[in-house]
């Protein structure tokens, strides 16, 4: 009991407090300067990029992942296909960072096999620089772990749809379309939104993949925070890093709270 609380205090609560308090300190004195620094154009654009990247890949990943989850759910419950896809997605959802960045470089980079192949059939994708841009390549790369994550999070919800609901709809005179629009969609909606929020935070807090791909500038919030830690910076800069970190925690906390609320509702509907 005591070890647990001591440990979490030192390695979880103190760091959190360091961030929260540090965000309002400068040179040992309380200040709002760091928070004000969040309105600097560089920080604002990093925040914007992060939000857009996370939102787009969350929604895109959620839609594609949901369709995939439904397709998988129509396969046999204990079949090899389902186990195969579930296991693969289990690995790919965690497959961030360096290896993922390399994988895309090897496929879509300047000498990647797809780029070469496309060039052969006459499609010129340019020198492969698009891959490093946050609103092109990064989105594609992020989708690569967002879709599998969606499958893992959303598959249980899809499987919670009872065959009786479809059959009841049919006997009451409803078509397949009616079933999806009036029954399945409303039932899955809370889970879907919840999962999308989870995907959003997942993308929003990802650092490794972006760090491995983007070598110049700090177009994203996590990269900007990382920069304040590694580069030799002027005094006071590290507290601006704390303010950005706090901003991140707030965004993620809001999303996760909403997720928890939605998750509770859908589990009531889908509980056995």
């Amino acid at each position, binding site marked *: *009991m005591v*070890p*647990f609380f001591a*440990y979490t205090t*030192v*390695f*979880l609560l*103190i*760091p*959190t407090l*360091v961030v929260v308090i540090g965000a309002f300190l400068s040179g040992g004195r309380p200040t709002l300067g760091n928070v004000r620094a969040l309105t600097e154009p560089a920080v604002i654009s990093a925040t914007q990029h992060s939000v857009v990247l996370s939102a787009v890949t969350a929604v895109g990943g959620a839609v594609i992942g949901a369709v995939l989850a439904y397709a*998988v759910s*129509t396969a046999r*419950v*204990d079949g090899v*296909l389902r*186990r195969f*896809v*579930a*296991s*693969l*997605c*289990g*690995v790919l959802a*965690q*497959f961030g*960072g*360096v*290896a*993922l960045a*390399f*994988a895309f*470089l*090897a*496929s*879509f980079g300047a000498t990647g*096999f*797809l780029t070469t192949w496309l060039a052969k059939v006459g499609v010129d994708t340019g020198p492969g620089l698009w891959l490093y841009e946050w609103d092109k390549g990064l989105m594609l790369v992020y989708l690569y772990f967002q879709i*599998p994550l969606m499958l893992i999070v959303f598959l*249980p919800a899809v*499987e*919670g749809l009872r*065959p009786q609901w479809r059959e009841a709809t049919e006997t009451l005179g409803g078509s*397949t379309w009616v079933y999806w629009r009036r029954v399945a969609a409303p039932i899955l909606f809370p889970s879907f939104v919840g999962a999308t929020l989870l995907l959003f*935070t997942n993308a929003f*807090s990802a*650092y*490794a993949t972006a*760090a*491995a791909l983007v070598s110049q500038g700090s177009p994203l919030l996590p990269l900007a925070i*990382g920069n304040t*830690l*590694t580069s030799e910076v002027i005094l006071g800069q590290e507290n601006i*890093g*704390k303010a950005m*970190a706090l901003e*991140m*925690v707030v965004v*993620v906390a809001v999303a*996760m709270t909403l997720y928890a609320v939605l998750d509770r509702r859908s589990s009531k509907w889908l509980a056995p």
Partner: protein
Amino acid sequence: MSGNRAAARRKQDVFRWVTIGVCLLFFALPLYGMLEFTTRGPGGTRSAQTWATLLDFGKVSAEYPALKEGFLASVGLAVLTVLIMLVLLVPTMTWVRLRLPGLSRTVEFLCLLPLTVPAIVLVVGLTPVYAWVTYLLGESTLWLSLAYVILVLPYAYRSLDAGLRAIDVKTLAEASRSLGAGWGTVMMRVILPNLRTAVLSASFLSVALVLGEFTIANLFSRKNLQVAMYELGKSDAQISIAVGLAALVFGFLVLFAMSFVGGPRSATAAAPRLRRTRKESP
């Protein structure tokens, strides 16, 4: 007689195969890219040289000391993280269930809190803490595991919580106490054996997370597997990518195997609910 149902089922089959096929193709492209890249030989030929090197452990450690160092560090980190996590969580969670149910919400909150604290933020907050760790314990990479325990906390908590939920800890403990067992015996001989699957899955998730960790190690300038791969990627990309692909395939094989061993309720496999056509059981 073909019938409405059969037609609908055929349509569903087509939809399933097309959807899964397209997604798997997307998943396969970068993986194939990795394989293709690691088998490139000089002058556009195919060569298994990279993989031969990788399989020859002596050669790897001689030619790529950084990779060996990072790999060993990551393995050490994984073991240490799992140990600390188990020592910290299992007794605490069991004890809360037995004696202090009032604290369960606090423990749950603390364990799930890291979900809202991204690794990059944790790094920011941990900087002063690690100044002390380095001062007291030295510079070893292994001390990163102290921070990794926090990262794996939510996932480990969920696995163990599911495991504890499935057994009636209270009755088990009371039964063994009434038979004369001390608390130590209850823990080691009664609770732990019943939690085997949960402990296993919590450990597996932790290992997977630690082996893939890059953010904290990189920003604290420590060398684990991912950092080594990242740095190596700049000079010898082939071997670096080969390691990444090998790790991925290994992870997949472990998960796939576990989905058969653990039955339909294991880590990622779905709960055994019936879908689609319900047939009369023969």
